[in-house]
């Protein structure tokens, strides 16, 4: 029972263009969503988050959009840079869920020069 899904295992984008990573969830109790970036042989690094009371959160080149009715969120990176090449994980948590994060399976983003 996978409550958080990232249906694209990989994505390739040209440097300077926009990268859009998608994530879907099924549990309507989730009220907080996070994106993590992971390089090989390192731990996931927190990137950006969004509460369910918002539909957009922006931090520099990174913007997360939340569509609660569709149970869908996306991460936009613009402009994409070679250093953005990594695996991106979407995660969700529910209030009162003891802060447990439920992760998607990740999307490998490759930025081509």
């Amino acid at each position, binding site marked *: 029972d996978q409550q958080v899904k990232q249906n694209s295992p990989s994505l390739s984008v040209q440097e300077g263009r926009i990268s859009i990573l998608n994530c879907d969830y099924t549990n309507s109790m989730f009220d*907080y969503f*996070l994106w*993590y970036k992971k390089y090989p*042989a*390192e*731990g*996931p*690094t*927190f990137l950006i*988050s969004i509460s369910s009371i918002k539909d957009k959160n922006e931090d520099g080149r990174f913007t997360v959009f939340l569509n609660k009715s569709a149970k869908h969120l996306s991460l936009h990176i613009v402009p994409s840079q070679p250093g953005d090449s990594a*695996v991106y*994980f979407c995660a969700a*948590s529910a209030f009162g869920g*003891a*802060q*447990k*994060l*439920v*992760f998607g*399976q*990740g999307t490998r983003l490759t930025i081509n020069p």
Partner: protein
Amino acid sequence: DTAVSQTPKYLVTQMGNDKSIKCEQNLGHDTMYWYKQDSKKFLKIMFSYNNKELIINETVPNRFSPKSPDKAHLNLHINSLELGDSAVYFCASSRPGGAREQFFGPGTRLTVL
């Protein structure tokens, strides 16, 4: 450096052995977690401690026993290791007050032969 650290980074051992992985955070956080990333790359919560008290215990074999001597440390002891325990284990921590963002250590790759 302020961070979540884990030792060892790599652990190779024989089936049936008992091993421990140590985790320390110097971020002043009060909640710590263990996650397992299996061969399919799914990251799943195993345990969580808040101020040395166990608050999450997912469906994990009781061969796995977490121990928190203080709120800066959460160790994972595994008895009678099995082939299926081979995975990358990540420790994480989060700030007091129920903050949802978790900060991860670099991971420990466990290989059971």
